[in-house]
């Protein structure tokens, strides 16, 4: 007898009814009082008296992921008190670049080795298309706790939806994340530095969050240049250029989108002619130009290396994920760092910023047996309770629901919260493709961007052509697009 059959025999419930039951209990959880609430609360939980072991797969070395894991004992206490069952958690981890591989190889065998997975947002298509993760539409419909008002459409588009623009929900936000500019406030406030900057440029250095919110890249460049002092082993700026995973892509997309570019047409799958425009090639050159304000070896800077150079006082400023705020602002830097929106690109009224979205959704293994599926749904219901979301924020996490983010005290919980909320608003941050072929497409452009920033390839237009052609071919081969690469593509290479 399988685990699922065991569960059904023990509880006398079929899988479908278990999910419906989960919905009913979810309703009971929020009803709290009233006839419906009392009636449903009286119904015993099908797992009452049982012991369940859950497995979560998360991202190694990623603070927000471990926060979700660290908070799981609270869930165990919650369900023990509320539903009278015991749950324990086992955790497995893999670094960003390897987590999809670990998850996919397990899910491809229809294993329930990992009951809940902290996925990266781009993986939704690759996990959903083969049916490895649970479609959450029905679950959300049946669980009022999960029918939250999210802070922005960007949250839904990034962490929940596949295919892009559809109403199919496959994930729920575990951790929201946006790009932020971390700046050394103590350096800005140094009277000698302020006087020197004013003497050099005839205007004061920006000091406040509001000053930086209006700053353009041209104005910010003065600051980056001012603090670049290789003789003193200090540089003005850092951002990600690494070839690993999506590091260069996310950093470059900040330039591409903010300067008016696009990466593809999600409806037709057209890449060639959209990605490889002269404007986007110019954006790539501009992205590379900023290397002159970065420390040596910046072409290998990823998330971890970025944290290192900032925390060690090697750089004045850095565009980094808000989610690594706790690592970027350790005890010794508390009160010395300002977290602000990254500068706008362009000038005057046309200046704008559209940055990359980070963050990860929870996804649920579609092969979970009924008992584990039920616990997973209970877990999701608990995760989005207002008190859980608040606790998550207090521990350094970034929730995405409007209620928590709209709390008057939210901005003061963490130094990056105000910027997180600001950048999470629609039009300021966006994610790239959720296509099942994301990994192949990503690998191509990581190679291309890395080749360009390290001078292995010197013509930005040729690099963009190479990437666009290769990606167009991938999408054509996979059937996502019917558009064939043009004749020009035959001669492209890195």
């Amino acid at each position, binding site marked *: 007898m399988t685990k699922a059959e065991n569960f059904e025999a023990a509880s006398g419930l079929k899988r479908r009814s278990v999910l419906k039951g989960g919905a009913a209990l979810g309703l009971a959880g929020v009803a709290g009082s009233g006839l419906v609430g009392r009636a449903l609360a009286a119904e015993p939980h099908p797992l009452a008296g049982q012991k369940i072991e859950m497995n979560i797969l998360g991202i190694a070395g990623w603070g927000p992921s471990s926060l979700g894991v660290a908070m799981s004992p609270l869930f165990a206490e919650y369900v023990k008190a509320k539903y009278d069952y015991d749950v324990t958690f086992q955790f497995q981890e893999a670094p960003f670049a390897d987590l999809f591989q670990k998850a*996919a190889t397990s899910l491809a065998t229809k294993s329930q080795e990992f009951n809940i997975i902290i996925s990266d947002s781009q993986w939704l298509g690759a996990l959903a298309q*083969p049916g490895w993760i649970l479609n959450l539409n029905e679950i959300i419909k049946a669980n009022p706790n999960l029918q939250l008002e999210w802070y922005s459409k960007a949250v839904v588009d990034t962490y929940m939806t596949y295919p892009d623009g559809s109403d199919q929900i496959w994930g729920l936000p575990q951790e929201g994340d946006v790009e932020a500019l971390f700046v050394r406030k103590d350096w800005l406030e140094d009277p000698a530095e302020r006087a020197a900057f004013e003497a050099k440029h005839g205007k004061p250095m920006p000091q406040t969050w509001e000053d930086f919110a209006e700053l353009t890249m041209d104005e910010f460049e003065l600051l980056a240049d001012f603090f670049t002092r290789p003789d003193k082993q200090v540089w003005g700026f850092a951002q990600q250029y690494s070839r690993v995973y999506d590091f260069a892509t996310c950093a470059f997309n900040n330039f591409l989108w903010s300067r008016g570019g696009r990466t593809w047409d999600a409806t037709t799958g057209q890449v060639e002619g959209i990605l490889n425009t002269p404007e986007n090639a110019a954006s790539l050159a501009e992205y590379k130009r900023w290397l002159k304000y970065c420390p040596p070896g910046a072409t290998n800077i990823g998330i971890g290396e970025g944290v290192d150079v900032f925390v060690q006082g090697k750089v004045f400023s850095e565009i980094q994920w808000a989610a690594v705020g706790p690592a970027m602002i350790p005890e010794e830097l508390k009160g010395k760092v300002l977290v602000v929106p990254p500068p706008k690109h362009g000038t005057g009224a046309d200046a704008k910023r559209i940055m990359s979205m980070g963050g990860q959704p929870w996804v649920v293994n579609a092969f979970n047996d009924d008992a584990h599926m039920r616990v997973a749904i209970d877990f999701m219901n608990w995760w989005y309770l207002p008190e859980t979301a608040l606790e998550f924020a207090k521990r350094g996490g970034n929730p995405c629901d409007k209620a928590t983010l709209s709390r008057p005290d939210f901005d003061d919980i963490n130094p990056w919260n105000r910027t997180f909320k600001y950048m999470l608003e629609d039009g300021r941050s966006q994610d790239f493709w959720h296509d099942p072929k994301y990994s192949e497409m990503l*690998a191509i452009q990581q190679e291309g961007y890395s080749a360009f920033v390290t001078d292995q390839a010197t013509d930005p237009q040729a690099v963009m052509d190479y990437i666009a052609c290769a990606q167009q071919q991938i999408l054509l081969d996979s059937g996502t697009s019917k558009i064939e690469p043009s004749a020009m593509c035959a001669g492209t290479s890195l």
Partner: protein
Amino acid sequence: MSPGMRPQGRGRLMDNPRTRVFILLAPVVTFFVVFNTIPTLWLLGLSFYNHSLTSGMPPEFIGFKNFVAIFNGKNSIWFDLSRTFTFVICGVTFQTLLGAALGFLFWGSKNMPGRRIALTLLFAPMVLTPVATGTFFRFIYDPTFGVLNYIARDGFGMAPIDFLGNPKIAFWAVLAVDSWMWTPFMTLMTLAALGSVPKAELEAAEIDRVPYLRRLSLVIWHHGKFIMMLGILLRTIDSFKTLDLIIPMTKGGPGQSTRLVALELNKQSFESFNMGWSSAYAVLLLLISIAMTSVFIYVLNLRRRKEAEE
């Protein structure tokens, strides 16, 4: 066994030389078939399909299309192959020469104090996990806070060297780490080869005042070549599939400058889950490995064949 009793069942089968061979070979043959032959045949079959695990679609038979795509240079694989051959030839040559030199040094200094400790230290890199070694060296090479640049900068006043970020240097920086790890292996093989040389023949050559180079070719190489060639063969195969050292160091970058075949195969199969195309690629690499092994075995047997002909 009392006289007149005949062995029964398994005992009788074991007494028969013909059946004994099969019985003794059965476990290893079963293991080989289950874990080698069947997967290889499966791999071969899959290479004729368009099959992506993440597409949610069943495998589609496409004949030789994957192989045609490979020969047309899909995913720049000819560049990867050329880079890999450079890596293998340069790496194995350097490791063999240096390893052999160190082997002779230790062979000729058997009474040197601390020889055992020196040998133990020499072999240490070989037993380290390549992933850990790659990670260590990524930090050692780091231009901002790596120890190598610290010495170069503070000790010699040099400008920082971006070992892994400069496409002109990265390949050689990775090769240097590979050599650091695997030169001891060739030292070990050299010591084993030298140990197989009969002392009597060496002494006879010495008494006859045979010049050292002739002694090397007529006595030492004659007896030690099999072990040395085996070492070179093992290193060549191992070097050809280098993966776990490069992933933590450069992930194939900058650009494609350290992208070797194993890295691309790993990416296509276990990151992009293109099982059909990856299988075709793996078949090609398998054929190359078999060809390389055959060349080594041919060279190894050349003299034996000549002797047999004479």
